[in-house]
Every structure is written in C-alpha cells, then in structure tokens.
C-alpha cells in the first residue's frame, strides 16, 4: 500500500489545520482505503476524524433528523431515534454493503464520496437534506455535482447531515447481488410541502425523477406510475443491466416504494 502519514484530529478545527497539500479525511475508510490499495488514489496525509466528538451524535426533532458525519451505517440502522423518526433511512443503512462494511463505513464518507450507485445520496435528495460542513450549510439539491463529485471544497469537512422528517417515505433497491450497490435504487418521500423521488445507480450521479414526482403529486398511488415513460437516454449500461432495463426497473422500484411507504 502506498505510504502516507496518518494523523488523528480531536476537533474539527484541528482536522482543518492538519489538512494540507494532498490530504484526505479518513472516516470508515471503506472506499478510501481500497482506492489507495488499488492505486486509484494517493495522498500524503490521512486525517482520522473518527475521534472528533462533535461528529458522532444523532438528534431528532419533530421536523428534522440530524446525523453526525462519522456515524456508521450499523449505528444508523440500529438507532432508536432514526427508526422512530425516519424508518426508511434505518432500513437503507441496513442494506448497505455487508455487516463488516456497515460496522466501519460512515454516512459522511458515503456522501462525500458520492458513488453513482451509493444509497445515502438518494436519501439526501429525497428527504431534502442539508449538508452541514465546517463552513456552511449546503442543500442536497446543490451538493451532488457528478460522478464522485460534490460541492465540497478542498479541506471542507462534513459535520452532519440533517434530513427533513417526511410524512411517509420508502427506499427500494434492486441491488447488485455481489456488492449490494444499487443497480437501481428509488427513494420516495412525501414531505410536508412536496413529494420527492430520488434515483441512484442509474446515471453518473444521483438525480430526482421529476416525472414520477409529478405523477405522485397528482395521485399518490402505484397505478399513477404505470403510464409514465422513462427514457433510458444517458442511463448507465453495463454487464449488470442495460440502460433500457434500468429504465424499466425504476418504475418497478418506484411502485414498490409507493406500496411500502
């Protein structure tokens, strides 16, 4: 494994101070370490942020659920606050990767990485999340920029993700049977003011499917999805699924999500 300096920060301030040149923040490392091992990435310093106390709380109110960025998927999946406030989010966390990945991987890491097939970005878009960093608050709609690309600037650290508590919501995923990444994942949330539908695994970046949002706003039922025409133009096409197949599965997953909302 390519060499780097390992440093531990105990506060956000310290983490930012330690950040220089080709550094990366290290949380669970479930993507970062394999990327370094495979020589897809190289850094001079890894800054461990797991010991920063402020990044590991879960706070629920009637309107929002705020999850610290260094919270593991396993902790989200088993959190009483999350299960009570947004059960679909706990279920999503419980379906990421495998138990060992869930024991290490974190919500902040997943969002900062913005893998095109990751689950959490869909939750952020559907649940109108706000990404809190050490510098600012970024609405999810402006956060996910492209494949593995976000609005984060160099040395900017995610501190927490604040989700709007929906009236009802559901996430349904058609997983790759080996990796459990989404071949297609659809998150539907009926929020106080709007219905949001986020799709992951289908394009180079998570996106909102406005067609399904409109159909469900007119009539929140499975049947209203039947007549929607989803174009496969620009969709991912690989050995796991063709673009046309993904377009078809979006509707299947959306209907399932509506029925389990």
């Amino acid at each position, binding site marked *: 494994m390519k060499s780097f300096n390992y440093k531990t920060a105990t506060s956000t301030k310290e983490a930012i101070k330690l950040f220089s040149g080709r550094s990366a923040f290290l949380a669970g490392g479930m993507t970062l370490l394999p990327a370094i091992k495979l020589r897809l990435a190289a850094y001079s310093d890894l800054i461990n942020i797991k010991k920063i106390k402020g990044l590991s709380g879960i706070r629920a109110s009637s309107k929002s659920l705020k999850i610290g960025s260094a919270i593991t998927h396993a902790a989200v999946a088993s959190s009483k606050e999350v299960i009570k406030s947004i059960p679909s989010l706990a279920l999503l966390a419980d379906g990421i*990767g495998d138990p060992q990945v869930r024991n*290490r991987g974190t919500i902040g890491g997943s969002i900062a990485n913005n893998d095109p097939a990751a689950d959490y970005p869909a939750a952020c878009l559907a649940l109108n999340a706000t990404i809190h960093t050490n510098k600012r608050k970024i609405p999810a709609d402006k956060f996910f920029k492209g494949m593995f690309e976000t609005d984060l600037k160099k040395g900017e650290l995610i501190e927490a993700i604040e989700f709007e508590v929906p009236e009802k919501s559901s996430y349904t995923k058609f997983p790759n049977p080996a990796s459990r990444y989404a071949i297609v994942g659809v998150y539907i949330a009926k929020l106080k003011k709007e219905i949001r539908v986020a799709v992951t695994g289908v394009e180079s970046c998570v996106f909102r499917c406005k067609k399904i949002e409109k159909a469900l706003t007119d009539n929140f039922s499975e049947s209203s999805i039947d007549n929607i025409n989803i174009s496969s133009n620009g969709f991912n096409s690989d050995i796991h699924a063709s673009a046309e197949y993904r377009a078809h599965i979006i509707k299947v997953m959306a209907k399932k999500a509506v029925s389990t909302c």
Partner: protein
Amino acid sequence: MANVNIKINGKKISKEISDNILLSDFLRDKLLLTGTHIGCDTSQCGACVVHLNGNSVKSCTTLVADCDGCEVTTIEGLSSNGKMHVMQESFKKHHGLQCGFCTPGMVMSAIDLLQKNKNPNEQEIRDWLEGNICRCTGYQNIVAAVKDAASKM
C-alpha cells in the same frame, strides 16, 4: 511511524508501526497470527474478518493506526484452555467447511451475528454472511452450523 497500543486476543501489545500497515498484514506478518486469511484483499470476500471492539470488521481494509486503544479478537483468540468455541465446534460437527480458506472469517462473522441476534432464522443468517464468500460454495452446511451454534450459545 507511530506507536500503537492494542489488546489482541486478550494480550496487550505495544508496537511501533508504519502509518500505512493494514491490520490483516500486521496480524499475519508481525504477530504471526496466520489464522486470519487474506483472500481478495479488496474487502469483498470476508476471509480476513476479525472483531474490533466486539464488532466484525474486514482487517484487510482496517489500518492498524485506527486500532490504537482498541481490542482485537482473531480466530486464534476464540478457544480457551484448548477447548474450541461453540461456533468452531459447530462448524466441525456440521462439516461447515471444505477447503477451509474462508472458515476463519465465516466463524468470526457468525459469532458477531449471534451477539446481535441470538436466534436468527435461515434468511437472517444468509443475509448476515453476505460479506463472506465460500468458493467451495459450501453454504448449506455453514448455515446449518450457525443455526446449531445459535441453539447452544
């Protein structure tokens, strides 16, 4: 280089390590605990699963530097006074292994499951073992072994 203090299989260890050494390599090459296997080395196969503070993790994707102040249990740490752990006994009894390469990881994962779910059904066992791959495809007996161990633990 940094100094880390780790409790491994109940024994306190203080060692100077390089910043980029992985737990799997450290266990095998520095401590000669070769029961932890390295299969894919990309955190997919689960042969390298150990417990970190009681939770199962893939040691091929864990930095030793991250384990400072933690407790690690490997397959070598399961038996006591020469007596196998219930899960190990159960794997033996049900022939939950063929070539045996995936077995240490399977056993460590399965024990973590029973810590969190005392009486898992077959589907829950299969779901939990998602991150452990047996290329002999001997899953039937592995599931039977975990089920039997659950009734005894």
